[in-house]
């Protein structure tokens, strides 16, 4: 296995005025050339995890643990070092390009900004690079696009611009925060295919953040499932599909319409995720869990325990005290 | 649908007023005091502010003249109290006329929509080009000094603000189901607009009118300061400031500073109360 590009180690983030941490001892890694999924409902902390990799934690947040990008400590880095990291090593594709790209500036400005302001390239060189990038993400007439404004492009085209912008600094690690959620269905597949192609061509490490477990399982090598700030299951895509172990993952797989076949056995996970103002002394999922056992699940915080021997900390693991007693219904979900 | 769920009850209004923080409550208190002073001024004022004592001009504070006298020997404290009457009455007129007119125009325009609405909006746009003080000065030039003509002119200048607000709110509110419910019950549109819709936007309109009150007070004080509004010997804050200018140059600014403070505090209080009401109204 390659050395990790992104290494998050026991990251805990607490915001003032909240009852539980936004992130609670989150550990995950992304190696070069690897596509890793981070799955969870909104508010589960998946976006905060990705922002932590950029050193973009909300102001006033208390944090513990480490975040390493290319071996370099992000949380301890100074502003200058952090900017250099963001401009070169790691970048992020945001969910909504309409909101994420400044509407009053030209596409060319968006693409060349980090090159010109942080890398001090001259305009000509930066624009040549921007044209290459637009061509690489499949936009027609790249020279013309440079002079256009965001409102003149469709959502799908704009998301391609966002991706091109993320690639401007030749990063090795790409974070994608729900990159297709704001797009219409026909465009979603194109953007995913584009991301996949770019990832393979450039050997990127890619962290795909999504609420769609099926999507993650279909596109990623490995998947982390998050719930209320904690990683509750870690598995390869095959393991996740074939043998999900955590009751929450099982619920998620049951609640997502399968990509193929009739959506007959759709069962939503009952209840709603706990908010930041609710503390859970035990497992945060216990209140919604069909297998929860009073006196155990609501008191004991389950550790993320490896199910098979994996020395590198990447093997199948789940955080549930009743693992041994819960049958994996994978066969029922997917005969 | 019962009217209770649609109308804003008086009790709820009063309870709402309490929940706006200390600044709001202080300002509301200030306004209550000002209104009380205006109502009771003839009984409160220790002296007649229209009678000057020429033996005692530009005096500092003393037991006889709590806030001193101006260069004409008028008692500043008494003038301050009695000046509250004209200083608040003028803006009241402006706000009353502009609110009634603005609500009528805005309701009609927003309710009808279409071409009528477009024409009315265009007319309002033209009116926006006339600053209120300018229109008041023009009114004085046409009809002579005093309060009457400027108050009407300023009502015309303030009308577009209320009208535009009411128009927007009406167009928005008209699409709500309760309006359809009223209409289905066979009520006439005019009745529904006034009895059904208006109470629901009243809080926001009241907020706008409160802010307008402050600015109208400011404009009318400016007009009197220019010597074009309230004429002596009628006590008025703006007119007091106008007369006190020579005292300022003589290094005795008290008789000017007192009415200046009254104007600033009153406008501040109206602004704060109006804005807080507006914040609540839009939620």
């Amino acid at each position, binding site marked *: 296995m390659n050395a990790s590009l992104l290494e998050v180690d026991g990251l805990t983030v607490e915001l003032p005025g909240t009852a539980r941490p936004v992130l609670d001892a989150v550990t995950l890694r992304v190696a070069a050339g690897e596509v890793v999924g981070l799955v969870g409902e909104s508010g589960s902390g998946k976006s905060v995890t990705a922002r932590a990799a950029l050193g973009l934690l909300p102001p006033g947040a208390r944090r513990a643990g480490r975040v390493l990008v290319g071996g370099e400590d992000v949380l301890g880095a100074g502003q200058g070092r952090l900017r250099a990291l963001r401009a070169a090593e790691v970048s992020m594709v945001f969910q909504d390009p309409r909101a994420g790209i400044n509407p009053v500036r030209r596409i060319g400005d968006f693409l060349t900004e980090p090159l010109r*302001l942080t890398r001090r390239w001259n305009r000509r060189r930066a624009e040549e690079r921007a044209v290459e990038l637009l061509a690489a993400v499949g936009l027609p007439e790249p020279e013309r696009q440079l002079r256009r404004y965001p409102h003149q492009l469709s959502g799908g085209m704009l998301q391609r611009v966002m991706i091109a912008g993320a690639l401007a600094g030749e990063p090795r690690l790409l974070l994608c925060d729900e990159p297709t959620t704001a797009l219409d269905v026909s465009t979603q597949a194109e953007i995913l295919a584009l991301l996949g192609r770019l990832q393979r061509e450039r050997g990127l490490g890619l962290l795909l953040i999504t609420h769609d477990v099926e999507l993650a399982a279909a596109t990623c090598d490995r998947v982390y499932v998050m719930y209320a700030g904690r990683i509750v299951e870690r598995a390869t895509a095959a393991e996740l599909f074939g043998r999900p172990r955590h009751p929450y993952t099982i619920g998620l797989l049951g609640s997502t319409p399968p990509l193929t076949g009739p959506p007959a056995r759709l069962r939503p996970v009952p209840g709603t995720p706990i908010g930041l103002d609710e503390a859970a002394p035990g497992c945060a999922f216990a209140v919604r869990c069909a297998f929860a056992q009073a006196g155990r699940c609501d008191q004991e915080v389950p550790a993320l325990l490896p199910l098979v021997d994996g020395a590198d900390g990447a093997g199948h693991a789940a955080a549930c005290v009743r693992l041994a007693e819960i049958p994996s219904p994978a066969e029922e979900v997917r005969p | 649908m019962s009217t209770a769920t649609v109308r804003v009850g008086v009790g709820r209004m009063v309870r709402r007023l309490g929940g706006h923080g200390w600044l709001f409550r202080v300002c509301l208190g200030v306004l209550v005091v000002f209104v009380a002073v205006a109502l009771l001024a003839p009984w409160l004022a220790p002296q007649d502010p229209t009678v000057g004592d020429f033996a005692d001009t530009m005096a500092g504070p003393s037991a006889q003249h709590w806030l001193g006298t101006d260069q004409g020997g008028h008692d500043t404290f008494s003038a301050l109290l009695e000046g509250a009457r004209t200083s608040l009455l003028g803006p009241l007129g402006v706000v009353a006329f502009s609110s009634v007119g603005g609500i009528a125009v805005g309701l009609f325009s927003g309710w009808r929509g279409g071409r009528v609405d477009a024409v009315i909006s265009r007319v309002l746009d033209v009116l926006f*080009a006339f600053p209120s003080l300018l229109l008041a*000065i023009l009114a004085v030039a046409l009809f002579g000094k005093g309060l009457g003509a400027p108050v009407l002119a300023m009502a015309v200048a303030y009308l577009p603000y209320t009208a535009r607000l009411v128009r927007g709110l009406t167009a928005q509110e008209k699409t709500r189901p309760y309006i359809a419910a009223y209409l289905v019950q066979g009520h006439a549109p005019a009745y529904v607009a006034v009895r059904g819709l208006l109470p629901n936007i009243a809080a926001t309109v009241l907020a706008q009118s409160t802010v307008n009150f402050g600015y109208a007070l400011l404009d009318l004080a400016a007009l009197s*300061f220019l010597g*074009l509004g309230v004429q002596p010997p009628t006590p008025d804050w703006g007119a007091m400031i106008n007369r006190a200018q020579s005292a300022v140059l003589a290094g005795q600014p008290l008789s000017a500073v007192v009415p*200046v403070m009254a104007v600033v505090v009153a406008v501040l209080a109206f*602004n704060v109360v109006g804005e807080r009401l507006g914040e609540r109204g839009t939620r």
Partner: protein
Amino acid sequence: MSLALAVLRRLAGTAVTLLVTSFLVYSSLYLAPGDPVSFLVRGRSPSPAELASIRRQFGFDQPFLLRYWHWLDAVLHGDFGRSYLFHQSVGAVIWSRLPSSLLLVAVATVLIAVVGIGAGALGALRRGTRTDGAVLLLVTVGAAVPSFAAAIVLRSVLGVKLGWFPTIGNGSGLLDRLRHVVLPAIALSVTFMALVTRVTRSAMLDQLGREHVEVALSRGTPRFAVLRRHVFRNALGPIVTVSGLLVSGMLVSTAIVETAFGMSGIGSLLVQCVDELDFQVVQALVLLVVAAFVVVNTLVDLVYPLIDPRVARRAGGVR
């Protein structure tokens, strides 16, 4: 192509607005009680021959609309009639006083732009701190301080008590003029400063919370560049929008400030001519201020697509 059309449409709209406002200003004369001719010569005792000449000059024997048309034609040629007070053409009277008022407005504009935008930006960037609290307090109080109140206090403290600045008149020579204009300009700017501060603060706060700012930061753009290129740049629209209001408001307020500081200018001229019944001058000044508002707003509309390209297509629309 369509842009040129939009500009033309906007200019046509401006022309219509100017036409309507000028008509309103002209016909206001007929609101005055009594016969317009005797209204115009109030307070003076013209001979019958003079009265007849006024009648002819105004064309009172012609239909109303035709009279308006002749008046408008004259105004468009720079002829606003004669001032009975100064025995000069109205244009000459206004023209001689315009420069000092424009100096006052210009200095006030600089103050408003620098302090207003500066304080607003400071408040937005230090949101929720004591600094922001102070900015908010100044905005609330500043909006309630009329220019005559500021004039009284400034004159009394910095002028009379401390003697740092002259308290009356316009001064002569550039330096002396500037010295004379400092206090009036501050008095003139207080209210508008509060407005600009408030607009800047809220527009920048709005932008600071936007995702494109986070995206820019996430890409390693230096913080100051993000503030300049994304936050302030995008907040410019609302700030520029209030400038029409600022210009006409300041022009009217020169009446107060120039009167308070005993200065000569179009503001004090307006007050003097109302006081001494010279209606022609009043009418011309009202028209001037209203036209300034309409013209500045048109300029704002025409410039706006450069500030926010999303509205380019709406440039021809009604504000």
